[in-house]
């Protein structure tokens, strides 16, 4: 294991844990920037999709993974962001304004659902957000005049200061930029009192109050920020799909978002990225392996949802910390090689802790 020698408190506040980490992330950035010049249009488009889901994943992770508030209706925020951006663009508002406007309006909706649900805990909150998601989905469908209803809405091509963002490459760079900005935002939150307040609320509300944390305020802020980020993801999503249809923002998408957060690994930003990669690649992987499955399984209808289900079940039974959990274990194994202790990550059999009392 690398020994870290710290000489000032400011070092602990840096975004990367060590000079080596700066190097790796820098390299990653260079590779990502170069990809559109190396890979074909299809793959560039697919990666843009990954970025969009990663943005939404970060938004939802802040809420579920860090503040402990489960939302089963986040597709609603994706939809609000997407439609706000698209509608403003069709009205001639420059993209440089429509994008942040989408984020802000969605954040406002986050406050709208955050405030009434302050007294709700766990399960009830999840159901309330589910209902909220349904309501927004239906409104998007029915408000024909604004959203075009089932006819759908074509998303205009955006331009910043005259530079037109078009094609798969344009969307790629756009979503990458938003993703980097959102990640910076999230990392800032996590190293400041706001992030700590969120974690405190997740782990012990009573204790958090005794420390002076105003529950109602911070829960609302968490909802607002999470919704705002997801709204930005929605705007990017609109440019990714080029065409918005209201039934694309229903319960199924909400479940996908929650799965991203969960399979990726609760409570880590890396998890949001891993989860997004996984969920985006799953349909491709299934399509590719369809023919090589035994017993003609590949030809069965309903293969995709069942594989989705099987993966969820396996992840929870065998690696509840998600992909990020495996990643950390692998890093540790390589770092301590050959002195890795087998019991280091062994899960204890534990009793069921009551979540009725938090």
């Amino acid at each position: 294991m690398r020994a870290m020698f710290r000489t000032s408190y400011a070092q602990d506040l840096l975004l990367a844990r060590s000079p080596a980490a700066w190097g790796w992330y820098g390299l990653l950035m260079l590779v990502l920037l170069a990809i559109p010049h190396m890979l074909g249009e299809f793959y560039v488009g697919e990666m843009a999709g990954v970025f969009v889901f990663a943005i939404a994943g970060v938004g939802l992770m802040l809420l579920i993974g860090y503040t402990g508030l489960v939302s089963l209706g986040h597709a609603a925020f994706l939809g609000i962001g997407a439609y706000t951006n698209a509608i403003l663009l069709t009205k001639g508002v420059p993209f440089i304004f429509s994008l942040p406007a989408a984020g802000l309006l969605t954040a406002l909706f986050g406050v709208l659902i955050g405030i009434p649900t302050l007294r709700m805990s766990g399960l009830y909150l999840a159901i309330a957000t589910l209902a909220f998601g349904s309501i927004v989905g239906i409104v998007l469908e029915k408000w024909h005049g604004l959203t075009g209803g089932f006819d759908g809405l074509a998303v205009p091509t955006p331009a910043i200061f005259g530079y037109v963002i078009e094609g798969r490459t344009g969307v790629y760079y756009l979503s990458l930029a938003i993703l980097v900005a959102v990640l910076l935002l999230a990392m800032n939150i996590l190293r400041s009192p706001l992030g700590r307040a969120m974690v405190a609320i997740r782990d012990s509300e009573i204790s958090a109050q005794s420390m002076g944390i105003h529950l109602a305020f911070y829960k609302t802020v968490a909802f607002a920020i999470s919704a705002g980020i997801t709204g930005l993801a929605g705007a990017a999503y609109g440019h990714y799909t080029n065409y918005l249809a209201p039934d694309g923002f229903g319960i199924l998408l909400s479940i996908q978002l929650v799965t991203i957060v969960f399979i990726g690994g609760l409570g880590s930003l890396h998890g949001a990225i891993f989860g997004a990669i996984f969920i985006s690649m799953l349909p491709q992987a299934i399509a590719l392996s369809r023919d090589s499955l035994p017993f003609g399984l590949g030809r069965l209808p309903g293969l995709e949802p069942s594989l989705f289900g099987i993966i969820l079940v396996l992840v929870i039974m065998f690696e509840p910390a998600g992909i990020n959990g495996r990643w950390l274990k692998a890093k540790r194994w390589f770092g301590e090689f050959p002195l890795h202790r087998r019991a280091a990550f062994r899960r204890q059999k534990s009793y069921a802790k009551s979540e009725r009392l938090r």
Partner: protein
Amino acid sequence: MRAERVIDGHASTCLTSTHNERCDGISSTPKGKRAGMDELVRLVQLAINGTAAGCIYGLVALGFVLIYKATEMVNFAQGELMMLGAFFAYTFVGMWGMNYWVGFALAIAATAAFGYALDAVVLRRVIGQPQFAVVMLTLGLAFIFRAVAGAVWGYDSVGFLTPFTNKVADFGGGVILGQDNVSIIVGTVILCAVLYVFFSRTPLGIAMQASSQNQLAAYYMGIPVRTVFSLIWAISAGVSAVAAVLLVPVSMIDVNMGILGFKAFAAAVLGGFGSIPGALVGGIIVGITEQFAGRFLPAGSMELTSNIVLLAVLIVWPQGLFGQVIRKRV
């Protein structure tokens, strides 16, 4: 539920799958004084329809609540358990031609056994994980069950004949109800009575209550808690199977009928998730609200209304109608 038909210019949801001209005895030409009477009769029909639908929601919600009270697990696959129960019944009665009542009993047994196995094989291994993880697990299971059911029974809608299909019961005063609705309500009442007696009078039932209230103390008393939990899963699955079979005269069986689970879930939440009578009351409220919304509100706003109602109830009573406010002792 199914079979939306338009009568007198209003969309009215009839709970029969027949093609009768009459829909639960509603006359199609009301006039004058007779119109008033008919309106009243119509409201009674709506209430009965709603109660019957509500009983189904309530039974599935009951399945949720039984499991939640014991193990604090939220079973998002409850609707799919009901779907499996329906397909088992279809196999026994529809495909193999058994007697309805024998097939009914066998379907309950089969589904209960399946529920038991599910807990013993899969859910026991995730004890100790946060509630959210279990929710995701059962969600995954729901997907798997749907796909497996589709592979085994196909994706077409099926059904089979029951003693209550296409028959009516005349209660006098112009009130004529489908026997299917009545059977649902009566069946629910009988089942609840049986469950009540079971939980409060039999040793096993009391052991179950003990295990759900205090696991550790139950262990000390020599109660095999894990087996008891698996039995609770079995009962919960069995209850869902009953709901499924009661539903057959009214609705087709298909792979997606588990979607009902979401409404049942809402019903359970409405009633306060830890309360057994609450689950039934919640279900009936959902069922009746649905019927009246369908009758009196513009077409297609039913889903919106039910969601708004759910949200509103939770805002005012964050623990549901009968839920207890539980506070942590620090």
